[in-house]
């Protein structure tokens, strides 16, 4: 066990945990941030995605001790009470069905648009391709991303 300090959504938290513990469990169980979700524990589905230093990262396979820099979770996307444009687009487009994967979809889309603000359809497909949805809301997810990329939110 060791004391580890994490900066999450603009706040510092110190936790006393086994350092190799995947970040996901610390966020969900110790910090009460349950936007990131457990889907596979293998880094394959993307449900646990958070953004660290601008990159979409799979928190289920990220040892907590390896984290350097600011972590943003789904809870941290809204600013000053205003939803992030992607979150707003997700509502306008009525994207989620069960919603369980949507944390990963939104966070991955954010990292994608931060790097490529106006992606082509192909760039959206490729950028999102490793983030699974078993309700198969892909068509609506892509429509919501295009709304934001096209400035329509």
């Amino acid at each position, binding site marked *: *066990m060791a004391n580890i300090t994490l900066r999450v959504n603009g706040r510092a938290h110190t936790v006393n*945990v*086994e350092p190799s*513990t*995947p970040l996901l*469990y610390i966020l*969900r*169980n110790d910090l009460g*941030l*349950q*936007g990131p*979700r*457990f*889907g*596979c*524990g*293998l880094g*394959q*589905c993307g*449900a646990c995605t958070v953004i660290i230093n601008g990159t979409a990262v799979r928190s289920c396979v990220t040892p907590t001790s390896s984290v350097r820099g600011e972590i943003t*979770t*789904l*809870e941290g*996307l*809204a600013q000053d009470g205003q*939803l992030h444009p992607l*979150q707003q687009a*997700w*509502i306008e487009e*009525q*994207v*989620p*069905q*069960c*919603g*369980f*994967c*949507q*944390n990963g979809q*939104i966070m991955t889309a954010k990292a994608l648009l931060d790097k490529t603000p106006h992606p082509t*359809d192909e760039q*959206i*497909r*490729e950028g*999102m*391709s*490793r*983030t*699974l*949805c*078993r*309700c*198969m*809301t*892909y*068509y*609506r*997810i*892509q429509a919501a991303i295009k709304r934001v990329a096209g400035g329509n939110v």
Partner: protein
Amino acid sequence: MNVEKILLENSASPSRREFLKTSGMLVVGFSAAAVAGPFAAQAGAQAARGLYPDPDFRQLDSWIVIHQDNTATFFVGKTDCGQGTGTAFRQMMSDELDVPFKDTTCVMGTTDVTVDQGGSGGSDAIQVDGWPMRRVAAEARRVLLDMASERFGVPVAGLAVGDAVITVKADPSKRVTYGELIGGKRFNVALTGANIDATTGVAKVKPVQQLTMVGQSPQRYDIPPKVNGTAKWAADVKLPGMVHARNVKPPLAGAKLVSIDESSVRSLPGFVKVASKGNYVAVVCEREEQAIAAAKQLKCNWQKPATAPFPASADLFTYMRGATPKSSQTPNTLGNVDTALAGAAKIVEAEYEIPFQGHTAISPAHALADPSNGQMTIYSNDMKSYGMRNGVATFLGIPREQVRVIWMEGPQGYGRTAADDAGFEAAYIAKELGRPVRMQWTRAEEQGWDTKGPAFTFKIRGALDAQGNMTALDYAARSCDYNHLGYNEPDTVLIAQLMGQRRAMPANGSSAFPNDMYAIPNRRTLLEVVGLPLIWETPIRTGNLRDPNGPQSTFAAESFIDEMAAAAKADPIEFRMRMLTGSNADDNGFRRARSIAVLKAAAEKFGWQPRPAPNTARRNGDILTGRGIAYTYRNQTVVAEIAEVDVNRKTGRVWVKRLVCAHDCGLIINPEGLRRTIEGGMLHSISRALYEEVAFDTEKVLSVDWASHPSLTHMDTPAQIDIVMVNGDPNPNRPDLPHYGAGETSCKPMIAAVANAIFDATGVRLRRVPFRKERVLAALNAANV
């Protein structure tokens, strides 16, 4: 954690905060013993046995609460797999009650506060359960009008009602709100009805023309919390003193536990307990990551079974063809198939195969069980929460009134999933330990041990006469099925089986016949079911998966109709239309007329130019393009779907680039919600068509993650999806126009539509699902395409 608070937070509406402040959940806490009426004695006896007796469905208060702030909460016994049925229930009930939609909330599927409407299943939420919901809401409106009539001394006919306010027509200054009349108080009005589906008051529901919210598309109330991170799923509940459990499954199917070396984990940090009985093993630790580590480290000695539990998946269809059926039926037989075949101008024969396909939810199964107060509360996303409640009570040997299941949202579960298992497991360990226990399955456990949709083989023959008309259909379907999870019998879950609690035989399972709307004068239908050698404690267990046998039987039947059309050199839609219009017989739901209407609508939307398949004209280098249609029905919902595909001749990759769906489910409650339900259903079936297959050797499942069990991804998303909502009822706007189910029908024809489109593109008929690129490429190479 306050249960009522959870329930309400999951029923968020714009007025949620005010609602929480003012209502105090007066009714959720009411004791059934205090309910007046003819069933009070029964309720009193139930209450004596536990804290969670059944809500009395014959009491209006069990369904509707009006709050002092003039808002309403609806309590319904359904659950939602992510299609937004709660929003639809609010639309239907607010229309009948005359309360603004925005001022309503809905609590669903929690066994001690909502009547047992069965949870979800069979796409019946709107079709069946919507009716008692409408009737009780209409009854509440009637009672409120009577109260206002008494208050003002004006007959009901002299009153007007709108937006939860009743006014005297002759003197509009005289007004009273619902909240002023009854806010926070009980109706104490008895309802009647032989069962919950038949529940009714005195009032009649409104004619369709007077419904205003029905037919609109208010946004789903559950979506904002799902995108801003505040939604609480069953996976998220935390309780004081809670511990974490992980199963340790037998490494080989049918293995017997010989011994456990508890010393292998006893010194691990946070270790609490090894829970074991029979072949069931789980570890419990204080923290989640500790439980994960302990489950990996626990040393168990397992004895391999003497005989192989099942054939390898590569040999499955050979095994199925050779197995002795455990049941055999011959429904829907008509005319004389042998005579028709003997006199045929052309005979077509084909065999089709579809493997076991899993639910493979995006999150593995989980549940939290709390044994506080000598009762058992289970937080679960199981779609059949009432069944779990009854099953857990039997399993634990405690009165059912001591068990409640609090239904919360979860990962997509289109049918009977392992969410059921996780609830039983958490409850068992919680009872043993006396602490709240959170059970979480792993990804490998989910892919390996979740219930599967049954595998099928089909053998079909058809006859054409000299004019190219289909004169005979000889259809034989064979499923591999036990319907293991059945209907919530306690011995159907894995933990019970592993502990040795078994019935003599599981449910029989079922096969499925093709649609009978085509006018084919001679039909023979043979439905057989076979089983695998290992019946219990098996990872290859079956359970209803999204229209349980429909995608399989429709894949075979609608592929075969396409083969017949090609043999007749007829356009596939024209060929189907000829058989649909070949009979004038229709039922009182006008299924035939509505079937013809969706086929026409789909063809028109697609811009379908008639010609026989395959298409040899449209080739663009290595990309071969084709279109395929399939049509079917489910109960009274009819659907025609067209897929347009690109097949890459060099790689075998199939991309379904365009979809058209014409859909008629009668009266539509929420068109935008329905549209997304149809999209998801079609894409789920495309995933089954192109990717999904449970792979196993003779000892265990091999497809245990997303690499070994691929699923549709963003790369596969169609470029265009067009959905046409058809209302083919010849008498639209009639007062009793029914609302049919829409959850599963759209899943049903899509595998066939894709197969038919691949044939159109390439001239190669694929009869074995899934159409993974290696299999497609091999078929193209074999045919020199």
